[in-house]
């Protein structure tokens, strides 16, 4: 039998999921970080503890192709000239889980990273720099995908 406390806790979890997706109550991935499980960009940001609404910034540079022929391998590069950046994030808006990667920035590293991501369909790609004061600055670019990289 469930105690009242358990019931309340579970309904809170489900409510949170529903609020995040608006559609799918099921939890597809059992990954240990809320941020990576988040379905939308805002949820991912919340889970990472970013404060306030992200602002578009010319100091964040996102390099991505206009058209990706193969959604399984989309080269993405991000760099920023903002001071005091703590984390750099890559997000794909229409992926099942928006967050692709989190790079932690420290004094020994330049905030400039490149990797390759999978994209399920054409979508906006966001590069986000979170500074020490919790503010999020972003750059975005639309990438058209000819062949999706998530299903199959």
């Amino acid at each position, binding site marked *: 039998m469930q105690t009242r406390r358990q019931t309340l806790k579970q309904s809170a979890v489900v409510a949170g999921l529903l609020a995040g997706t608006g559609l799918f109550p099921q939890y597809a*991935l059992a990954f240990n970080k809320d941020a*990576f499980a988040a379905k939308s960009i805002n949820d991912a940001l919340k889970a990472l503890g970013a404060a306030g609404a992200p602002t578009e910034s010319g100091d964040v540079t996102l390099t991505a192709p206009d058209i990706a022929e193969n959604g*399984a391998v989309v080269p993405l590069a991000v760099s920023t000239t903002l001071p005091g950046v703590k984390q750099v994030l890559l997000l794909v808006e229409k992926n099942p889980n928006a967050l692709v990667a989190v790079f932690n920035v420290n004094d*020994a*590293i*330049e905030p400039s990273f490149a990797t*390759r991501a*999978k994209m399920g369909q054409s979508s906006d790609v966001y590069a986000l720099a979170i500074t020490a004061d919790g503010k999020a600055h972003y750059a975005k670019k639309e990438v058209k995908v000819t062949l999706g990289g998530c299903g*199959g």
Partner: protein
Amino acid sequence: MGDPMRIRAQAKDDKATVRVLMSHEMESGQRKDASGNIVPAWHIQDVKASLNGKEVFSCEWGPAVSKNPFLQFVVKGAKAGDKLSVTWTDNKGDTRTDEATVS
């Protein structure tokens, strides 16, 4: 334990550009197998790099990073001859470390 990583670290001025190619399936958890069951996610979730034994870089990945992932980052203050090691850990607890010399 996966196959070895390919690591290239090139020093220029007072910093080094590090390029890593890892060998990993990076299963997204979205795909279905022939009988319609979802193939469970299997991906690298944590990558760390250290220069001469001191950790300089870390990142976290979701399943949306491509198969056989590529990673590039820039380490400040690295010189030719420095030892750079890269470690990844996947969501099954598997881990691999490889080392390269900055050139």
